Protein backbone atom coordinates (compact mmCIF):
# COMPACT_ATOMS: atom_id res chain seq x y z
CA UNK A 1 0.00 0.00 0.00
CA UNK A 2 0.97 3.63 -0.41
CA UNK A 3 1.42 5.88 2.60
CA UNK A 4 0.51 9.49 2.01
CA UNK A 5 1.21 12.46 4.23
CA UNK A 6 -0.14 15.96 3.91
CA UNK A 7 0.97 19.26 5.34
CA UNK A 8 -0.49 21.18 6.99
CA UNK A 9 -3.09 19.00 8.65
CA UNK A 10 -5.24 22.04 9.27
CA UNK A 11 -5.08 25.79 8.95
CA UNK A 12 -7.17 28.86 9.54
CA UNK A 13 -6.65 31.58 6.95
CA UNK A 14 -7.90 35.04 6.18
CA UNK A 15 -9.88 35.71 3.05
CA UNK A 16 -7.84 36.95 0.13
CA UNK A 17 -4.76 34.98 1.11
CA UNK A 18 -3.39 31.77 -0.39
CA UNK A 19 -2.43 28.44 1.13
CA UNK A 20 -0.22 25.75 -0.33
CA UNK A 21 -0.89 22.17 0.68
CA UNK A 22 1.82 19.56 0.32
CA UNK A 23 1.34 15.89 -0.46
CA UNK A 24 4.14 13.35 -0.03
CA UNK A 25 3.92 9.68 -1.04
CA UNK A 26 6.28 6.97 0.16
CA UNK A 27 6.61 5.44 -3.31
CA UNK A 28 6.79 6.65 -6.88
CA UNK A 29 3.41 7.01 -8.52
CA UNK A 30 2.36 8.19 -11.93
CA UNK A 31 -0.96 9.78 -11.15
CA UNK A 32 -1.83 11.93 -8.17
CA UNK A 33 -5.21 13.46 -7.54
CA UNK A 34 -6.57 16.30 -5.48
CA UNK A 35 -10.07 16.18 -4.01
CA UNK A 36 -12.16 18.64 -2.08
CA UNK A 37 -14.69 17.75 0.59
CA UNK A 38 -16.85 20.67 1.56
CA UNK A 39 -18.49 20.60 4.99
CA UNK A 40 -21.04 17.82 5.21
CA UNK A 41 -20.54 16.97 1.56
CA UNK A 42 -19.00 14.26 -0.52
CA UNK A 43 -15.63 14.33 -2.22
CA UNK A 44 -15.19 16.07 -5.54
CA UNK A 45 -12.19 15.68 -7.79
CA UNK A 46 -10.36 18.94 -8.40
CA UNK A 47 -7.59 17.84 -10.73
CA UNK A 48 -5.18 15.14 -11.81
CA UNK A 49 -1.47 15.87 -11.42
CA UNK A 50 0.96 13.95 -13.59
CA UNK A 51 4.68 14.43 -13.35
CA UNK A 52 6.12 16.28 -16.31
CA UNK A 53 2.88 17.72 -17.57
CA UNK A 54 0.32 20.32 -16.60
CA UNK A 55 -2.43 19.30 -14.27
CA UNK A 56 -5.80 18.39 -15.75
CA UNK A 57 -8.70 20.16 -14.07
CA UNK A 58 -12.25 18.94 -13.69
CA UNK A 59 -15.21 21.02 -14.65
CA UNK A 60 -15.70 23.89 -12.25
CA UNK A 61 -12.07 24.11 -11.20
CA UNK A 62 -9.48 26.36 -12.80
CA UNK A 63 -5.72 26.63 -12.64
CA UNK A 64 -5.73 30.25 -11.49
CA UNK A 65 -7.68 29.30 -8.39
CA UNK A 66 -6.04 25.94 -7.70
CA UNK A 67 -2.53 25.89 -9.17
CA UNK A 68 -0.85 22.51 -8.82
CA UNK A 69 2.76 21.48 -8.99
CA UNK A 70 4.15 17.99 -9.53
CA UNK A 71 7.94 18.24 -9.49
CA UNK A 72 8.61 14.52 -9.10
CA UNK A 73 6.93 11.13 -8.74
CA UNK A 74 6.46 11.33 -4.96
CA UNK A 75 5.38 14.91 -4.32
CA UNK A 76 2.70 17.41 -5.29
CA UNK A 77 1.33 20.70 -4.05
CA UNK A 78 -2.08 22.28 -4.35
CA UNK A 79 -2.47 26.01 -3.77
CA UNK A 80 -5.81 27.50 -2.88
CA UNK A 81 -5.55 31.08 -4.12
CA UNK A 82 -7.37 34.25 -3.11
CA UNK A 83 -9.38 32.33 -0.57
CA UNK A 84 -12.94 33.02 0.43
CA UNK A 85 -15.06 31.37 3.13
CA UNK A 86 -16.53 29.11 0.42
CA UNK A 87 -13.11 27.48 0.14
CA UNK A 88 -13.41 26.12 3.66
CA UNK A 89 -13.09 22.39 3.06
CA UNK A 90 -10.99 19.34 3.58
CA UNK A 91 -8.52 18.90 0.75
CA UNK A 92 -7.29 15.37 0.12
CA UNK A 93 -4.48 14.02 -1.93
CA UNK A 94 -4.87 10.61 -3.55
CA UNK A 95 -2.75 8.21 -5.54
CA UNK A 96 -3.44 5.10 -7.58
CA UNK A 97 -1.61 1.88 -7.02
CA UNK A 98 -2.20 -1.85 -6.70
CA UNK A 99 -5.67 -1.38 -8.28
CA UNK A 100 -6.64 0.84 -5.42
CA UNK A 101 -6.85 4.52 -4.62
CA UNK A 102 -5.09 5.61 -1.47
CA UNK A 103 -5.96 8.82 0.30
CA UNK A 104 -3.98 11.12 2.48
CA UNK A 105 -5.32 12.22 5.86
CA UNK A 106 -6.53 15.52 4.43
CA UNK A 107 -5.94 19.18 5.14
CA UNK A 108 -8.76 20.92 6.94
CA UNK A 109 -8.93 24.53 5.79
CA UNK A 110 -11.04 27.20 7.42
CA UNK A 111 -11.26 30.61 5.76
CA UNK A 112 -12.46 33.51 7.85
Amino acid at each position, binding site marked *: SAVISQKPSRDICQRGTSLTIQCQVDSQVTMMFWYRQQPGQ*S*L*TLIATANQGSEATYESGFVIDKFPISRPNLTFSTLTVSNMSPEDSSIYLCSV*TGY*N*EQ*FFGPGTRLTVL
Partner: protein
Amino acid sequence: AQSVTQPDIHITVSEGASLELRCNYSYGATPYLFWYVQSPGQGLQLLLKYFSGDTLVQGIKGFEAEFKRSQSSFNLRKPSVHWSDAAEYFCAVEPRYGSSNTGKLIFGQGTTLQVKP
Protein backbone atom coordinates in the same frame (compact mmCIF):
# COMPACT_ATOMS: atom_id res chain seq x y z
CA ALA B 1 -23.19 11.91 -17.13
CA GLN B 2 -21.66 9.46 -14.74
CA SER B 3 -23.10 9.63 -11.25
CA VAL B 4 -23.37 7.75 -8.00
CA THR B 5 -26.44 7.87 -5.79
CA GLN B 6 -26.66 6.87 -2.19
CA PRO B 7 -30.37 7.24 -1.45
CA ASP B 8 -30.03 7.14 2.32
CA ILE B 9 -28.39 10.21 3.81
CA HIS B 10 -28.68 8.96 7.38
CA ILE B 11 -29.31 5.49 8.80
CA THR B 12 -29.66 4.44 12.41
CA VAL B 13 -29.41 0.80 13.43
CA SER B 14 -29.15 -0.96 16.75
CA GLU B 15 -25.92 -2.63 17.69
CA GLY B 16 -26.02 -6.25 16.58
CA ALA B 17 -28.58 -5.60 13.88
CA SER B 18 -27.91 -6.15 10.21
CA LEU B 19 -27.03 -3.29 7.88
CA GLU B 20 -27.49 -2.55 4.21
CA LEU B 21 -26.35 0.67 2.61
CA ARG B 22 -27.56 1.32 -0.89
CA CYS B 23 -25.58 2.55 -3.85
CA ASN B 24 -26.68 3.02 -7.45
CA TYR B 25 -24.52 4.23 -10.27
CA SER B 26 -25.12 5.60 -13.70
CA TYR B 27 -22.53 4.58 -16.22
CA GLY B 28 -22.51 3.08 -19.68
CA ALA B 29 -20.26 0.17 -18.84
CA THR B 30 -19.27 -1.63 -15.68
CA PRO B 31 -16.97 0.65 -13.74
CA TYR B 32 -14.71 -0.23 -10.90
CA LEU B 33 -16.74 0.05 -7.70
CA PHE B 34 -15.62 0.92 -4.20
CA TRP B 35 -16.89 1.46 -0.71
CA TYR B 36 -14.98 3.74 1.65
CA VAL B 37 -15.52 4.58 5.29
CA GLN B 38 -14.64 7.87 6.93
CA SER B 39 -14.70 8.04 10.68
CA PRO B 40 -14.88 11.42 12.44
CA GLY B 41 -11.57 13.19 12.06
CA GLN B 42 -10.10 10.26 10.15
CA GLY B 43 -9.10 9.74 6.57
CA LEU B 44 -10.79 7.54 4.03
CA GLN B 45 -10.37 3.82 4.42
CA LEU B 46 -11.17 1.35 1.67
CA LEU B 47 -13.65 -1.31 2.77
CA LEU B 48 -13.86 -3.28 -0.45
CA LYS B 49 -13.74 -3.03 -4.20
CA TYR B 50 -15.19 -4.75 -7.25
CA PHE B 51 -13.45 -4.98 -10.57
CA SER B 52 -14.83 -8.14 -12.17
CA GLY B 53 -15.65 -11.77 -11.46
CA ASP B 54 -17.61 -12.90 -8.44
CA THR B 55 -20.33 -10.34 -7.83
CA LEU B 56 -20.22 -10.81 -4.06
CA VAL B 57 -17.08 -9.27 -2.64
CA GLN B 58 -15.77 -9.50 0.87
CA GLY B 59 -14.08 -6.61 2.56
CA ILE B 60 -12.53 -5.66 5.83
CA LYS B 61 -14.31 -5.35 9.16
CA GLY B 62 -16.90 -7.99 8.18
CA PHE B 63 -18.40 -5.97 5.33
CA GLU B 64 -19.49 -7.38 2.00
CA ALA B 65 -21.05 -5.90 -1.11
CA GLU B 66 -22.95 -7.34 -4.03
CA PHE B 67 -22.72 -6.01 -7.55
CA LYS B 68 -25.96 -6.30 -9.50
CA ARG B 69 -25.50 -5.28 -13.10
CA SER B 70 -29.22 -5.37 -13.90
CA GLN B 71 -29.92 -2.89 -11.13
CA SER B 72 -26.71 -0.85 -11.47
CA SER B 73 -26.29 -1.31 -7.77
CA PHE B 74 -23.47 -2.09 -5.38
CA ASN B 75 -25.02 -2.34 -1.94
CA LEU B 76 -22.91 -2.71 1.19
CA ARG B 77 -23.96 -5.15 3.90
CA LYS B 78 -22.90 -6.29 7.31
CA PRO B 79 -24.69 -9.03 9.26
CA SER B 80 -24.11 -7.56 12.72
CA VAL B 81 -23.19 -3.93 13.32
CA HIS B 82 -20.79 -2.86 16.06
CA TRP B 83 -20.80 0.52 17.75
CA SER B 84 -17.42 1.24 16.18
CA ASP B 85 -19.02 1.06 12.72
CA ALA B 86 -20.63 4.46 13.25
CA ALA B 87 -19.13 6.60 10.51
CA GLU B 88 -19.71 8.10 7.07
CA TYR B 89 -19.81 5.61 4.22
CA PHE B 90 -19.09 6.54 0.64
CA CYS B 91 -19.74 4.55 -2.49
CA ALA B 92 -17.51 5.44 -5.41
CA VAL B 93 -17.03 4.46 -9.01
CA GLU B 94 -13.99 4.71 -11.21
CA PRO B 95 -14.91 5.16 -14.86
CA ARG B 96 -13.01 3.02 -17.30
CA TYR B 97 -12.03 3.80 -20.86
CA GLY B 98 -11.56 0.57 -22.69
CA SER B 99 -9.25 -1.59 -20.62
CA SER B 100 -7.67 1.38 -18.88
CA ASN B 101 -8.59 2.71 -15.51
CA THR B 102 -8.59 6.45 -15.00
CA GLY B 103 -7.72 6.60 -11.34
CA LYS B 104 -10.46 9.19 -10.90
CA LEU B 105 -13.25 8.48 -8.46
CA ILE B 106 -16.80 9.74 -8.53
CA PHE B 107 -18.28 9.64 -5.06
CA GLY B 108 -21.82 9.33 -3.86
CA GLN B 109 -23.21 11.80 -1.36
CA GLY B 110 -22.41 9.55 1.55
CA THR B 111 -24.50 7.79 4.20
CA THR B 112 -24.06 8.59 7.85
CA LEU B 113 -24.44 5.52 10.01
CA GLN B 114 -25.46 5.91 13.60
CA VAL B 115 -25.41 2.88 15.89
CA LYS B 116 -27.71 2.72 18.89
CA PRO B 117 -26.57 0.78 21.94
